[in-house]
């Protein structure tokens, strides 16, 4: 099944567009074996299928798109138009965050997909939670949200600045003697200072 609108209440996918036999071929390596259906699991043992349905397709779709863009780039390179084709360049720019989005979507698929289990068949997520009060858990969660937003916004701001600046010609100067031992930080290759806010 390629696409459709999942309906959790009715336990079916509306407007489904399917390729017969393909799923069976991938998962069981044969054309006629059955994949255990979601409906064969008791309702309380099922994850939220709407979320996984979409997150998986976002991940896989972006993956396909990345391959496509790569092939397109190769074709343009062979045609000698890679550096002139504005449309393609705009597309690649738009694909910038695709890796991060696909990664997050894949993560959501695995984490939501294994619910309600932490250890499959043995331990429910509900039973694995610590005994801490809601206050402690929400405080720490809020703390992480604030910290990550702070740190990421600075980081993304810097990345945007580098993107805006565009590629810079690289000056090769071999380090002399002592400089070989000088420590370098991971983002030391980026020469731009941070934005003056």
């Amino acid at each position, binding site marked *: 099944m390629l696409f459709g609108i999942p309906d959790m209440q009715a336990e079916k996918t509306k407007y489904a567009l399917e390729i017969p036999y393909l799923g069976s071929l991938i998962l069981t390596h044969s054309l006629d074996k059955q994949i255990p259906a979601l409906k064969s699991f008791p309702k309380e043992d099922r994850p939220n299928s709407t979320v996984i349905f979409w997150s998986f397709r976002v991940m896989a779709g972006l993956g396909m798109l990345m391959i496509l863009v790569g092939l397109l780039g190769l074709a343009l390179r062979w045609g000698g138009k890679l550096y002139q084709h504005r449309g393609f360049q705009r597309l690649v720019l738009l694909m910038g965050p695709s890796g991060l989005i696909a990664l997050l979507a894949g993560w959501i698929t695995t984490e939501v997909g294994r619910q309600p289990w932490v250890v499959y068949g043995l331990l429910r997520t509900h039973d694995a939670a610590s005994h801490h009060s809601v206050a402690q858990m929400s405080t720490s969660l809020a703390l992480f949200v604030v910290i990550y937003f702070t740190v990421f916004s600075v980081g993304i701001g810097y990345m945007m600045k580098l993107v805006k600046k565009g590629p810079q010609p690289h000056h090769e100067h071999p380090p002399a003697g002592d400089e070989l031992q000088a*420590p370098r930080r991971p983002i030391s290759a980026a020469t731009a200072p941070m934005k003056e806010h």
Partner: protein
Amino acid sequence: MGIQGIDLSLIWGVIIAFGVMMYVIMDGFDLGLGILFPLIPDEQERDVMMNTVAPVWDGNETWLVLGGAALYGAFPLAYGVILEALYLPLILMLCGLIFRGVAFEFRFKSSPQKRHWWDKAFIGGSLLATFSQGVVIGAYVSGIPVVDRQFAGGGLDWLAPFPLVCGVGLVIAYALLGSTWLLVKTEGMLESRMRLFTRPLALLLMAMVLVIGVWTLQLHPELATRWSTHGHLQVFAGLVVLALLALFGLLRTLRQRHTHWPFVFTLVLMLLGYIGLALSIWPNIIPPSVSIWAAASPPSSQLFALIGALFILPVILMYTFWSYYVFRGKVRIGDGYH
């Protein structure tokens, strides 16, 4: 407990103790730099301080990850109980480590007007991480109640005078590690200033150790009985004598303007304190009641993880040694300004 007479829990206990010790010593001096930062207002000298650890600080934190992962694999009960009991201080430690880690990258990229924010992130992060670690050690030594293999205390048990004083103690200990590290790695004004700070820091640390030691014995009279029994007493006396010798050596080599010896003696001091702590708790992994054998995972899990650990530990040790070797020598102003 073991396979063919090999005590896997014992081996894992030693690996974890070793990993945590490596962490305390190595991340100790780079956290110490953040603690000393407020005493060094000069921007260039601050750059030098950060550059002395820039190539190694994140490698130092490998040991923290190793300790946590090994605890999870080999002693799941201890992992579950200790992390639950010390949830908030450990979260605060992580927050501190995030800020100081980011400061390493962004401080050198920020405009001079904004740089002070990253200085503050570095100072605050280092202080918070160190203080939280001290609180964690203090609360751990105080004991964590366990009933039916479950944490039986409250979420704020760590918020007591003893753990908080241990937090302050560790801040001083890391500052001393940091200042003696800088004696090795820097020169000129910065080095002389560190020479000035090291003596009071060392004496202050000894005072703190004394206070915390006496306090521990008062909180846990059973420790006093343990240490005073035959055999233990000799070990204890040996540790104290060695610690006094190390302190003497530290102060003496400091006066004689040695560059490396004060750091070595500080390491010895930390090591002796750590051994004393480990022997006081042994063979428990969750003081005061759960031993390493009671908290162990099944022998098959311990053996499985041990095979991986025996491969990876030499690798970590080798690259650690290599990175310190490559970046040996003094760091000067303007060096590594990238």
